[in-house]
């Protein structure tokens, strides 16, 4: 389920629209109306031959925003714009749209320009509060950030010598067993 919704124009006749169970009325959205439907529904209804719906792009994939991305992709708050920019954009390419090649190119270039910053910030922020750094990243970038942080943390852990120490597992600590030192006397 995606946060962004698409605008669909049901342009075929009414019988093409699925009816709610139990209702006997034959009313449904009239052709030419605009609806917001989730991505999975739009994908299911999409058929280039029957033209049940046509899709309008969310504004972040349109020309205006694409120019912003090509100018400097680092300033954009991708989380606010829809936290699944890359994933959703890739799914959008399923709907035949004349702007598809530009959209695909723009998504790729955005990723490339933001890559450097993600790499640097994830590898240099050890044991700090990273919420300011990840606030503007979308979900895919956040997963990458976490991978980078994990690599850094593991390295620091090794360097401190914690890699060869035996520590109590966090699962066991929660059992609340009495510790050895508590049992004496």
């Amino acid at each position, binding site marked *: 389920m995606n946060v962004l919704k698409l605008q669909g124009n049901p342009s075929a006749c009414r019988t093409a629209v699925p009816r709610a169970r139990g209702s006997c009325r034959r009313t449904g959205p009239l052709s030419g109306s605009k609806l917001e439907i989730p991505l999975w529904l739009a994908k299911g209804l999409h058929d280039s031959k029957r033209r049940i719906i046509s899709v309008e792009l969310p504004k972040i994939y349109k020309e205006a925003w694409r120019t912003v991305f090509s100018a400097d992709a680092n300033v954009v708050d991708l989380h606010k714009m829809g936290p699944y920019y890359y994933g959703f954009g890739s799914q959008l390419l*399923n709907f035949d749209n004349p702007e598809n090649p530009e959209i*695909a190119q723009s998504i*790729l270039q955005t*990723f490339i320009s933001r890559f*450097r910053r993600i790499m640097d910030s994830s*590898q240099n922020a050890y044991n700090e509060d990273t919420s300011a750094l990840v606030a503007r990243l979308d979900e*895919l970038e956040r997963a*990458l950030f976490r991978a980078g942080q994990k*690599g850094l943390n593991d390295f620091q852990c090794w360097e401190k010598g914690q890699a060869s120490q035996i520590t109590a597992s966090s699962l066991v600590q929660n059992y609340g067993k009495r510790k050895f030192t508590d049992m004496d006397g």
Partner: protein
Amino acid sequence: MDVEKLEEIRDRERKEDTFTPMPSPYYMELTKLLLNYASDNIPKADEIRTLVKDTWDTRIAKLRLSADSFVRQQEAHAKLDNLTLMEINTTGTFLTQALDHMYKLRTNLQPGESAHSQDF
């Protein structure tokens, strides 16, 4: 673990754009072990620690720079000589995941593709 030799290695690393061969493919691990457990027996242990750390930082910075230019120019193949395993491990996971995503985004550029992956 000679101070002059380490200084020389560090300066050479800073001058070169590519990676210089290290005296041992496990220099980080050896340094850590020796300095942690036998620091009294090694003269100038702190200086050695600093020198090795400087060399390490320089090499990691070069690695990141080359990873960035690799992604930026969307090259298909890169060859890095004289990297040690420890350096590869610190940046490996991140880099492979990032390249994975980039690959998926690049396949989107192919027009007329009917089999878009359902799960991203």
